[in-house]
């Protein structure tokens, strides 16, 4: 893959190959009990690069990105995020979690806080930001995800799509350098998927480094610099979306693509 290739049809690539990589995974292995869920996963993600990770369920794609901000711990191999190596040291963990934002499949908004409070919580308590400033920042991001008018409401009063957009705004309020998306549209009704994907496309346009686990192939084509196909815990194939989708080299990817098509 090269910088000259304009990935997809929509967003220009912002990947900077000259800068040090944003994320390095080096021969990462993980087991759940005796189950080998990540097998020698190696990936290097450049700053500003947008990567879509796909694969059948249970292929280890969610586990991979959850290892990046250490919601899961790996047992072998190295993970370096923004120049900081993940280790048991709490300070490195804090530093990494400040730089990495995450959006979950099930939104995970805090039901006892208003939308605005959801967004200002971390800036106030982690970034030590004055409340007024945090609120202004939060309102700014809520405007970008197009729901500033919901700021005073509670998560339970919003639709799924709105909640997921709030979750994106909440992560952005920490001004992360990297955003992780863990199947952000899988729990949504079809009519709400578009509003969330649009928000993500908008985010991609700002040059954010993004790793996104998703089955939305249209999104991958439009936004991704690179698509990584995982199966049974390993990276099977990777490359620019067009070449990967149109010329799958492995049987596994072919099977997966045909299943995706049938599924839709």
């Amino acid at each position, binding site marked *: 893959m090269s910088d000259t290739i304009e990935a997809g049809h929509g967003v220009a690539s912002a990947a900077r190959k000259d800068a040090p990589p944003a994320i390095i995974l080096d021969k990462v292995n993980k087991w759940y009990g005796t189950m080998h869920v990540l097998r020698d996963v190696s990936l290097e993600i450049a700053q500003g690069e947008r990567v879509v990770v796909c694969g059948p369920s249970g292929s280890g794609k969610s586990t991979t990105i959850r290892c990046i901000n250490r*919601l899961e711990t790996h047992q072998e191999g190295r993970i370096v995020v923004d120049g900081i190596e993940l280790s048991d040291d709490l300070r490195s963990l804090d530093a990494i979690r400040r730089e*990495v934002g995450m959006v979950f499949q099930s939104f995970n908004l*805090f*039901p*006892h806080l208003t939308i605005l409070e959801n967004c200002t919580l971390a800036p106030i308590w982690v970034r030590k930001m004055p409340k007024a400033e945090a609120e202004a920042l939060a309102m700014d991001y809520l405007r970008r995800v197009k729901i500033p008018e919901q700021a005073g409401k509670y998560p*339970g009063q919003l639709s799924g799509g709105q909640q997921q957009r709030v979750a994106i705004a*909440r992560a952005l309020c920490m001004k992360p350098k990297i955003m992780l998306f863990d199947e952000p549209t899988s729990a949504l009704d079809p009519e709400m998927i578009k509003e969330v994907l649009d928000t993500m496309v908008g985010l991609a346009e700002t040059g954010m480094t993004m790793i996104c686990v998703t089955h939305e192939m249209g999104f991958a084509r439009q936004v991704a610099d690179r698509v990584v196909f995982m199966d049974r815990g390993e990276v099977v194939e990777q490359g620019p979306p067009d070449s990967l989708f149109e010329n799958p080299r492995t049987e596994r990817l072919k099977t997966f693509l045909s299943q995706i098509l049938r599924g839709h």
Partner: protein
Amino acid sequence: MSGATADPRLAAARAVPKKRMRLSWSDPALRGIVWQVVIVALVVLGIWWLVSNTRHNLEVRRIATGFGFLWREAGLPIGEHLIDYSPTDTYFRALLVGVLNTLRVAIVGIVLATILGTLIGVARLSKNWLLAKLSAVYVEVLRDLPLLLQLLFWYAMLQGLPGPRQALHPAEGVYLSNRGLKLPGLVWEPAHGWALAAFLIGLVATYFYRRSALAKQMADGRPRPVWPAALGFLVVLPVAVWAALGAPWTVDWPALRGFNIQGGLTLSPEYFALLLGLVLYTAAFIAEIVRSGIMAVQLGQWEAAQALGLRPGQVLRRIVLPQALRVIIPPMTSQYLNLTKNSSLAVAIGYQDIVSIANTTLNQTGQAIEGVAIIMGVYLTISLSISLFMNWYNKRIALVER
């Protein structure tokens, strides 16, 4: 009784043709009224029957009625009393002593059971298998044995202890014998009262300091530690007051003199067994409530908060606890009420709580109705106060959703 339709619109629709005011059994409103009249009449009749029987019986047996006996001399000895009391005092004062004794065991019991129950509930979720299993066994065993049996067991256990002369002596100034638990006590002096007052003022001051520190942090983002001020208000200030008043410090150490242990603070075997039984039993239920409360907060909440960079303490304080408490408070209230009501089992092991004293009173005076009425009145008052307070608290922290 089809008047009880769930949908008010249906009822309204039926009510429209009002022109025909004919009385008919197919009219749900009429049926409702008839039903109510019949049932209320039956209840009133039943009560009237009981009352007239009772009046007749009281007359025949020449039992006095009314609460006049309250002002007569009780002549009943009470071992433990928080206020001055002697058998020459009135029944009213004896009952008051009983109420205070009930409160004494209930309040201490609620505090201790909450602490122990929370610890065990958290331990059940521990990653340490041994600790988790041990707590699970504790909960299962204690829940499945009648409280009264446990009380009798602890009481028998305490009575099986050696006498004062061979008392267990696990630490300096602590004696455990069949006469109860002896602890070193502080000789109370006015200076201690002032120090306590200073502490309470310090508590209020700390609260306001914390509020203003928080407000300032909200303004400029810079966190201000509260602990130095808290230390000053809660420790330095009371100590200073106490020292300024001459720092009186006399500890009353219990010691063996003759056949008994004298001095110090005494927990009678009855009080100790009752407290122990109530706390251990209620803690098992509270542990389950705490566990399910914490489990009710989904894992995703932890993950989302951690992913935002919150430290574990902050996650607990800002995300998990506020949500878990909502699930915990209502059942916790009923456990507090249960503990208070269960303290009435004191009568079985001879601790003189309100039930025990009211029972003696009704045996002495023969006024059973008044005696039982007093017991019920006291418990209804306590129950009502606890549930009012907890309802208020519950409303304060309720989830504002929809």
